[in-house]
């Protein structure tokens, strides 16, 4: 028997366990997405100003929109320059805390789910409600901005 087959047999119970637990798979993938967001912020430098995303609003009107400078803000927060990050975007820190909180929540809730499988349904409901509220609080200025522009 080759070592690769041995390893696959060894891991198969875990794989089977994960296959039947969509909550854990979703948590793992979302953790990856949040890590990618942080990697993006860490990779692009606020000094070089080489961000690939350009604001259409600023290009059209010359005035910055509510989300302008968010990438700069994230990069500066990751580098520990929080006051500068606040200057770039007032809501940058709030959104950053949302992503950091989500990273923490995904890990903690996954561990809790594995340790206490009986509390699964309650945990998922609790997670959904808390995440939704956290999201609304963090992104409220952006949602307001969109709806004001949409209605006016």
């Amino acid at each position, binding site marked *: 028997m080759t070592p690769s087959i041995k390893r696959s047999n060894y891991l198969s119970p875990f794989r089977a366990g994960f296959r039947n637990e969509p909550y854990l798979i979703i948590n793992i993938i979302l953790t990856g997405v949040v890590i990618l967001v942080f990697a993006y912020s860490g990779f692009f430098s606020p000094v070089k100003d080489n961000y690939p995303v350009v604001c*259409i609003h600023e290009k059209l*009107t010359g005035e910055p929109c509510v*989300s302008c400078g968010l990438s700069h803000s994230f990069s500066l927060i990751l580098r520990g320059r929080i006051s500068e990050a606040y200057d770039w975007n007032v809501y940058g820190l709030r959104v950053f805390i949302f992503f950091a909180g989500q990273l923490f929540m995904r890990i903690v809730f996954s561990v809790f789910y594995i340790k206490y499988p009986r509390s699964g349904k309650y945990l998922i409901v609790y997670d959904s409600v808390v995440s939704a509220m956290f999201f609304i609080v963090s*992104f409220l200025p*952006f949602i307001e901005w969109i709806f004001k522009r*949409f209605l*006016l």
Partner: protein
Amino acid sequence: MEDFTTNTPQSSEPLPGQTPRPPAGQSLGIAALITAIVTFVLSVIPCVGIIAIVPGIIAVVLASIGLSQASRNDSPRGVLVAGLIIGVVATVIAFSQIFVAGKIGDKFEKNWGGEIENVIRDVQKNVIDELEDANVSIKIENGDEKVEINVGEGKADREKELEELEEDNTGINDTLNKKE
């Protein structure tokens, strides 16, 4: 003839040592839900939200396919329904961003167009004012012959001349009302 179907398991119960298969449409449901969540977060960011239309539609399509598979096999649909709802809401928000962008564009065009009109009016007024005070002189030379035409005196000069003419005729200056 040998019946091969008797060896195949009829129930969804896995054989010993075999990993259990996930319910039908579950993988699609997970993919749909993750795409929908990411789309939702992306769609509420102004300007960037327009991009979220594409993953939003993908999430809705994945969830719909998964739901049809799940309904055929009578599998659980919680993840699929969640993915579909979040996907639809995210796509609607992303679409609303197109209208927002359109409104911003309209507003910008109106403001910009108005400014251009004002500039043109100012330029027109300046040109007319300058021409009213201008003296136009045309000189034509043909060999030894020279013709010189002087057209128009300044507005102030013309007004002065008019006043003088009226004074000569009536002796009373009551026809010209100057705006102070």
